[in-house]
């Protein structure tokens, strides 16, 4: 790659400055919320990306190796042959070398929570990709073409929208169960369908207004194909509303997934999923083993809070109408009067009072 020329760097800086402007102008409270939410979300994202760095055991590991320096996760598979293994004790409280305690099924709660974040993130990503992949193109086509197709799609999406999210997800999961083995993908599909109408609605309504823009007519007057107009001129002008829906939906998707898991329609048991863990811990709670339900529940709450903070904060920052009126943000540093060594000292044009004094 050729070295960047000075001009190009400046242009890049201007562009970055331009992109950061809404952030700088935003309400300081909104910025703090976004930062807090981002820290929480990124923390969970880290756990999801590298669960084995934090989790002492695998998600379905019920025994551990004793007396070896080898990687315990790797050694676990060879239990009995080369290594001496020991079952993880049942229902140990959180202060016994298992920081979050253990379950009645001999599983380490900390490891379950960490591995559960991986499932949560996978579902969030897969379901959103599905919802966007269907909702955005349908919204574009429906909004741009209008007519009967639009009517039919709007009615259909409204019909989907009136069903409560969790109920719809259960129905879809139930239907999918009949054809596919339950797993990550079918859970993602069940969660994703719930959010299609949101993407569809927002994109369609935005398309309706953008297609009236004079530049769309100008493009048509130059002979642009309908596909070009939709894919090039309209899409990039409506796609800006997607990130905000995404962050808000992501929080909701975590809850829907937990609900599905709690009811037993999510991912199948040995996989670590927070809602599933909470549901299996119900009997423990009655007997006084609080930790098996507490930690996965706390994880759900934290991740939902983090994602919601990011979403709401981004909404505040990107949507200027929600911004607090009159707040101008921090004055950019370059506008402050700089102490200039090469310019002459400011000349006072009015007669100096000292001259008149004797």
């Amino acid at each position, binding site marked *: 790659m050729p070295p960047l020329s000075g001009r190009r760097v400046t242009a890049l800086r201007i562009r970055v400055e331009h992109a950061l402007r809404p952030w700088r102008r935003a309400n300081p409270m909104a910025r703090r919320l976004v930062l807090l939410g981002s820290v929480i979300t990124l923390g969970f994202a880290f756990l999801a990306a590298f669960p084995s760095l934090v989790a002492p055991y695998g998600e379905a590991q019920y025994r551990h190796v004793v007396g070896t320096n080898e990687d315990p996760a790797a050694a676990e598979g060879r239990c009995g042959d080369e290594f001496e293994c020991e079952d993880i004790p049942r229902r140990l409280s959180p202060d016994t070398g298992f920081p979050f305690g253990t379950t009645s099924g001999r599983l380490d709660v900390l490891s379950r929570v960490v591995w559960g974040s991986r499932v949560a993130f996978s579902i969030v990503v897969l379901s959103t990709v599905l919802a966007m992949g269907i909702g955005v193109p349908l919204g574009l086509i429906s909004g741009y073409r*209008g007519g009967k197709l639009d009517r039919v799609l709007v009615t259909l999406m409204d019909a989907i929208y009136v069903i409560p999210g969790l109920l719809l997800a259960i129905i879809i999961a139930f239907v999918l169960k009949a054809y596919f083995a339950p797993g990550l993908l079918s859970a993602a599909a069940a969660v994703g369908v719930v959010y299609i109408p949101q993407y569809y609605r927002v994109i369609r309504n935005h398309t309706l207004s953008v297609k009236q*823009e*004079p*530049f769309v*007519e*100008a*493009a*048509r*007057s*130059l*002979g*642009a*194909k309908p596909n*070009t107009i939709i894919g*090039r*001129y309209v899409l*990039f*002008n409506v796609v800006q509303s997607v990130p905000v829906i995404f962050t808000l939906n992501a929080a909701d998707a975590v809850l829907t997934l937990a609900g599905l898991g709690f009811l037993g329609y999510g991912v199948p048991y040995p996989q670590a999923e927070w809602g599933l863990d909470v549901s299996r811990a119900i009997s423990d709670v009655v007997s006084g083993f609080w930790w098996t339900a507490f930690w996965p529940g706390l994880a759900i709450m934290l991740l939902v809070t983090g994602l919601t903070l990011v979403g709401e904060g981004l909404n505040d920052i990107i949507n200027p109408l929600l911004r607090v009126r009159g707040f101008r943000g921090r004055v950019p540093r370059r506008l402050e009067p700089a102490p200039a060594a090469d310019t002459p000292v400011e000349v006072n044009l009015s007669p100096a009072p000292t001259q008149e004094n004797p």
Partner: protein
Amino acid sequence: MTSAVSDTASGRPPSNVPVLQVRDLSVAYGTPRGSLGAVDRISFDLYPGESLGVVGESGCGKSSMGRGLMQLLPAGAEVSGSATLAGRELVGASDQQLRRLRGEDIALVFQEPMTRLDPLMKVSAHFVEAIRAHRPGVDKDEARHMAREALAQMGIPRTRADNYPHEFSGGMRQRIMIALGIVLKPAVVIADEPTTALDVIVEAQILDLLDRLRADERVGLILITHNLGIVAETCDRVAVMYAGHIVETGSVEQVFNDPKHPYTRGLMASTISLETTALHSIEGYPPDLVDPPPGCRFHPRCPDAMYQCREKIPEHAEPNPGQHASCYLYPGSGQPDPEEPPGTLAAALHA
């Protein structure tokens, strides 16, 4: 309304084959009250290298005519009649044929240049899109080169082709729009109030560019405007529209120095100049186009209205060679009863 209004008195067009032949073109909009005939059976010819000014007050159908030719009308609008562009019929052409013609053979330059470019696309990207839509074989670099040349022709530095629209002023954006319109060298350019949103200096630049384009590239130019001064300055011929009809055509000199149709006279008298002492306006309001007055559409406001004006639309008479007026004041307009004393109805109508 069937007579072809074609010959110019100045003999300016060197080619005798019109590039655009419009015959009985009508544009109607569907409204809840019925069909609104914004343009009603207009006919004219446009020769290569000629500029035709279309003037008239707001709502007379000037813009509808321009859009009707491009078939860029809202859903529910209907175009009928015939418009032949270099031998190809525009009215009734399929969407795909129209898409091929737009930009390549006929281009439209809009008013309000500030919003005609996609704010998220570089200027050069607009050109690449337009060029490659018509010539898929042209690669991107070549298209960008064509863009830079077209921009340079319009006085925009080549180096600015990769800037975004918001980085340009209104006048520059209008020049970009014109450059976009002409990059594929169309035979006809329709400029719909191209300078309305711009100040007079930029206006002069834009008009100068359009005029050069007409002279150098032999483009047939239709200039739609309500500003008579612009027409006087840049056009060869004028068509005056009133309530969807072309009421008078002729060379700029003829129409401006010796307007024949009463409406044109009123329009000319309404312009403001240094000598204006009192504002002159034409009495009354333009007619309701859903239910237009019978006969000549101007007769309710016309100071010279006669009995027959209410009966039948007058044909185009030719009071001077090359100057046509649709009015019973002139022989050849199909006056039904020559014995009828003219000018008797006016007082009765205005009483």
